[in-house]
């Protein structure tokens, strides 16, 4: 019980207090613990835990395949993907470069080189001629296999050049451009991630459609604010006159008067009076597009974004901040023990 209850709480409390109050102490040992050591300890623990995660993933997917559960081909694909990544990362180096150091006849060597770097014969020859005396030319794109690199070396040597193969160091092969692992990352993983991210555009549209449905006062307010923000932030918003918005406001006011008093006379007076006032004001002011500024969409959206929006967001942020602090204090003092299952 001591190891499952008291000890974890004691560790959480000690490290919690140290991290919290370490910020106020100008002492190198404590500073280095809080800023570096503690996070490194976490990274080390997370690295070990990674094995557990990988094993769990393999076990779950293998069970799905063995039991032929619904969607088992996806599980088989997941296992294949895992194995491929593992092999490209830990077993196959997948990154061998070819280096040309000398040549007798640049035209002959250029024939081989041109095919390897996808250039025409003349450009490849120019590259070789431009190579300084005693320097080497490295074919930038590495070969996935040693055999492939050796073959090119043999071809160059047969053409009268002198080339040798250089294997990339283990570890750096992960980030070397053109290596097997890097190829997998750039051409399989990145496009797949981008595809998932791109789905957001469609989901935002469907979610906005639901959010903007006029159901109640709040949803209507959201719809109007959304339209103003969207229009105000695109170039066309700047071409919509403030007077046009004012006319819409007058009509909306008329709708409000009608729904409140339910009297045609009142509605007529409000709408006609409003339209007349706006028109007279327009003639007096000369119908400038951006005046009155509060009804000009770019200014209006800016006001909505920086005032009501920021006020609401800050209120939420203060609540979140207090919530995070209160929760942390509960963990540090051992008041909240649910995270260890109590």
């Amino acid at each position: 019980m001591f190891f499952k209850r008291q000890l974890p709480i004691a560790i959480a409390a000690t490290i919690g207090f140290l991290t919290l109050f370490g910020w106020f102490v100008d002492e190198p040992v404590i500073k280095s613990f809080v800023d570096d050591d503690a996070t490194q300890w976490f990274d080390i623990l997370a690295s070990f835990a990674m094995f557990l995660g990988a094993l769990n993933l393999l076990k779950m997917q293998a069970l799905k395949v063995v039991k032929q559960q619904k969607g088992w081909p996806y599980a088989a694909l997941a296992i294949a993907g895992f194995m491929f990544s593992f092999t490209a990362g830990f077993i196959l180096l997948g990154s061998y470069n070819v280096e040309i150091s000398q040549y007798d006849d640049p035209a002959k060597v250029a024939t081989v080189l041109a095919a390897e770097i996808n250039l025409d014969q003349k450009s490849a020859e120019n590259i070789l001629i431009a190579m300084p005396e005693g320097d080497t030319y490295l074919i930038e794109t590495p070969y996935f296999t040693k055999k492939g690199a050796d073959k090119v070396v043999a071809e160059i040597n047969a053409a009268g050049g002198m080339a040798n193969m250089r294997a990339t160091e283990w570890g750096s092969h992960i980030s070397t451009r053109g290596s097997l692992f890097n190829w997998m990352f750039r051409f399989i993983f990145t496009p797949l991630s981008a595809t998932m991210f791109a789905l957001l555009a469609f989901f935002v549209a469907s979610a906005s459609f639901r959010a903007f449905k006029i159901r109640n006062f709040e949803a209507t307010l959201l719809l109007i604010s959304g339209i103003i923000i969207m229009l105000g932030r695109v170039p066309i918003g700047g071409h919509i006159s403030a007077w046009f918005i004012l006319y819409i406001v007058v009509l909306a006011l008329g709708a409000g008067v009608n729904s409140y008093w339910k009297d045609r006379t009142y509605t007529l007076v409000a709408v006609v009076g409003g339209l007349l006032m706006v028109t007279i004001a327009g003639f007096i002011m000369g119908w400038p597009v951006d005046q009155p500024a509060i009804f000009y969409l770019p200014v209006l959206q800016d006001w909505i974004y920086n005032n009501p929006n920021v006020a609401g967001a800050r209120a939420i942020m203060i609540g979140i901040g207090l919530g995070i602090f209160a929760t942390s204090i509960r963990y540090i003092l051992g008041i909240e023990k649910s995270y260890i299952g109590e």
Partner: protein
Amino acid sequence: MKDKQFWSVAGTIFVLFMIYWFLGHPHFVVERAVMFWAILVVGGVLIYSTRMAQRGEKIFLRSIPGLKAVEEAVGRSTEMGKPVLYVPGIMDMDQVETVAGVVVLGHVAKMTARYETSLNVPVSRAIVMKAARESCRESYLIEGRPDLFHDDMVHYLTDDQFAYAAGVNGIMLREEPAACLYMGKFYAESLLLAETGNSIGAIQIAGTASPSQIPFFVTACDYTLIGEEFFAASAYLSQEPELIGGVKGQDYLKMIAITMMVLGAVINLFHDLGWISWDILGYLTVQ
């Protein structure tokens, strides 16, 4: 801790700190003193509220629809014979939201154990997997149903954000859970998850303290715990007096914060008008 012990410990710490302070407080970063005193005040108020609750003071906790709906969601899953999907965010245990998510998972696991409903918890971090698994195991034990618990109900998918979203979406479309709960720290994947959950007709409850993701959850989920409501979830679900006391402490702190903001604005106005020379903004700005 009893009152006498508590005050003895608190008094000793205070006396030791005062001695340290009057000795010239070596190594103390004086520029951050405001933040230090603020932490002491906030911590003190929270501890006071917790102790008052422990001593039996009646505390009213307003009903939070999102949390009331958790039991309803688990019940719906039971009736439909479908699993409950719980997503504890995509970050590691160094984020307080993830820890809060794991804490709420413990309460949800108690409900699924009680109702004999299957629970599926895909996670994106191996440490979270271990913590969540322990939390679920304890909950099933407490409910007297260790036979229903199996390790694989909490399983690891991947560390990558969008790969994880793809994996969880796949689970949703294949297993069609009747309830999807999202409690933790989320980024851009929040809408991907919530919209997929919406498309399968699951009852969805989300809780996060990520301000930029709250609108997405509000739009796509049936209930959303906004910010501090999420951190109050554990208190609400457990009804433990000391946890509820902490929630009341937060309310006291909000009152203090509002008072300080109004006072600060007035004092700053006086400073701007040249009536007083003390620059409160300069004093409050943490270095």
